[in-house]
């Protein structure tokens, strides 16, 4: 009886679609390998076998990013964009546009389960999207404007500013920042009251229904415009900013804010991504494996690995972000002509120092930091 129940479970969502996707992806890469064997290489062109392995590498990287992102409780864009901008020669506009796709699909894939469980608040997401979407759209247009007019200077400046932002996010993750799991709302303003945003949900950890209140929706909307602007300009998912806005300004419970931020990123980036898509900054064959990896990694992470969230992942992620920040700033300074290229030995030394600190943190030999927010 139990075996039969288990079998029935395996042919239901999400296992069924996950199995179908796995089969499609595996068959696709087998087909790619078979097609590329013995195919002619045009003069000056890349062999199809190399293209296949490159696509497969992108897929695996994206899959890994999605899983790390779920384990660390963040969006994939925050990992993808800084790493690619810091350590590859690919044009920043192409990376930021692809990063937005990564962030968007990271959010889209988490939407279904969050909506079903009630942890995500649809009305709050739609309302916030009115600000986030417009901000993101303006941010994307600004990015295209800067790319078209500022050339190498713009590229350098973008990398330095993003390096600063990524470092700030890493420090914020390290110290945890201010967080209020269950904010106490004493007074709800008239505007927020009329919106009727709250939506009760069943909190499994407490075994009861949580009926929360939300306030200061007007200020929240304004802040969302700013968050969207940064997200759209830099091609980052902005869960690290959306959650504090919802939690600290609008008094949304932390878990609801974290879930709704994923939904909002998926929804809002559907507006933000279009200027990039219509300007040709999204190159289909380059984006495809990143997208597929995000969707598959996101589903697996959300349903399987979410139970095994490891604290050490957070430290590894912070290490990656600090090293990416170093790479971004130095690459930006090189682009602007302030320094000559950074020697490989210096890069390796910085990487080793960061790895050593991360190892100490994982083994508990570093001073304990307060909290640490894992639900961003």
């Amino acid at each position: 009886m139990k075996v039969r129940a288990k079998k029935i479970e395996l042919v239901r969502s999400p296992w069924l679609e996950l199995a179908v996707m796995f089969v499609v992806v595996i068959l696709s890469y087998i087909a790619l390998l078979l097609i590329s064997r013995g195919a002619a290489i045009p003069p000056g062109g890349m062999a199809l076998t190399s293209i296949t392995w490159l696509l497969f590498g992108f897929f695996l990287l994206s899959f890994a990013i999605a899983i790390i992102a779920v384990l660390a409780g963040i969006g994939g864009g925050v990992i993808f964009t800084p790493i690619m901008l810091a350590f590859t020669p690919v044009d920043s506009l192409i990376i930021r546009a692809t990063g937005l796709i990564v962030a968007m699909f990271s959010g889209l894939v988490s939407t279904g389960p969050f909506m079903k469980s009630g942890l995500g608040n649809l009305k709050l997401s739609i309302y916030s999207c009115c600000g986030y979407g417009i901000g993101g759209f303006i941010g994307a247009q600004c990015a295209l404007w800067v790319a078209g007019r500022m050339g190498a200077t713009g590229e350098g400046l973008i990398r330095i500013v993003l390096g600063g932002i990524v470092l700030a996010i890493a420090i914020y993750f390290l110290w945890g920042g201010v967080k209020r799991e269950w904010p106490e709302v004493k007074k709800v303003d008239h505007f927020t009251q009329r919106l009727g945003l709250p939506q009760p949900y069943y909190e499994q950890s407490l075994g009861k229904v949580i009926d929360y209140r939300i306030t200061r929706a007007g200020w929240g909307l304004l802040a969302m415009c700013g968050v969207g602007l940064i997200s759209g300009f830099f091609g980052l998912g902005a869960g690290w900013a959306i959650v504090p806005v919802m939690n600290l300004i609008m008094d949304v419970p932390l878990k609801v804010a974290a879930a709704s931020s994923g939904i909002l990123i998926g929804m809002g980036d559907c507006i933000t991504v279009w200027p990039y898509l219509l300007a040709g900054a999204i190159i289909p064959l380059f984006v495809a494996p990143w997208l597929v990896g995000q969707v598959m990694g996101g589903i697996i992470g959300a349903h399987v690995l979410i139970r095994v969230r490891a604290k050490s992942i957070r430290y590894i992620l912070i290490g990656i972000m600090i090293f990416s920040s170093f790479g971004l700033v130095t690459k930006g300074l090189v682009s602007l002509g302030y320094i000559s290229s950074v020697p490989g030995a210096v890069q390796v030394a910085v990487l080793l120092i960061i790895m050593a600190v991360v190892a100490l943190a994982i083994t508990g030999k570093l001073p304990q930091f307060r909290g640490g927010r894992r639900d961003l």
Partner: protein
Amino acid sequence: MKETKNYFIQSRPQLIYGRCIYWLSIVAAMICAIGPVIAVEFPSRNIMDPHYLFYSIWEGKTAEAVWQEVGGGFPGGHFWLHNLTGGDGFIQFGLVLGCSCACIALIGTAIAFLREKPRATGWALVSLWVASLIALAALGIYHV
């Protein structure tokens, strides 16, 4: 919203939005998984020849230059409409589907809001407003 033994059955708009987004993003991912096979099997049908594409990207060329060198210029974001049998056109279709899924889901959500009792007309309008923002962005009405 009904309460069962230990779980809330969510409101219909919420469930409709979640289901639409989930399935559309999975379909978009499947299209993007199959697209590269078509691109490699029939390179001549692509706008951009995959043999030269990745070199060009890896040399740090701008998106505009990549399209110009490899594909003879960017044919517009909706080139998939005329090139659905080509690999990159097919992938672009998947991307467009994924990037529009919130629009489709929000239209369904708006209908669900209108069918709720009591009718949530305000939320239906806000949903349609966000859906129209996505549609306007997709049509490229405002563009630098």
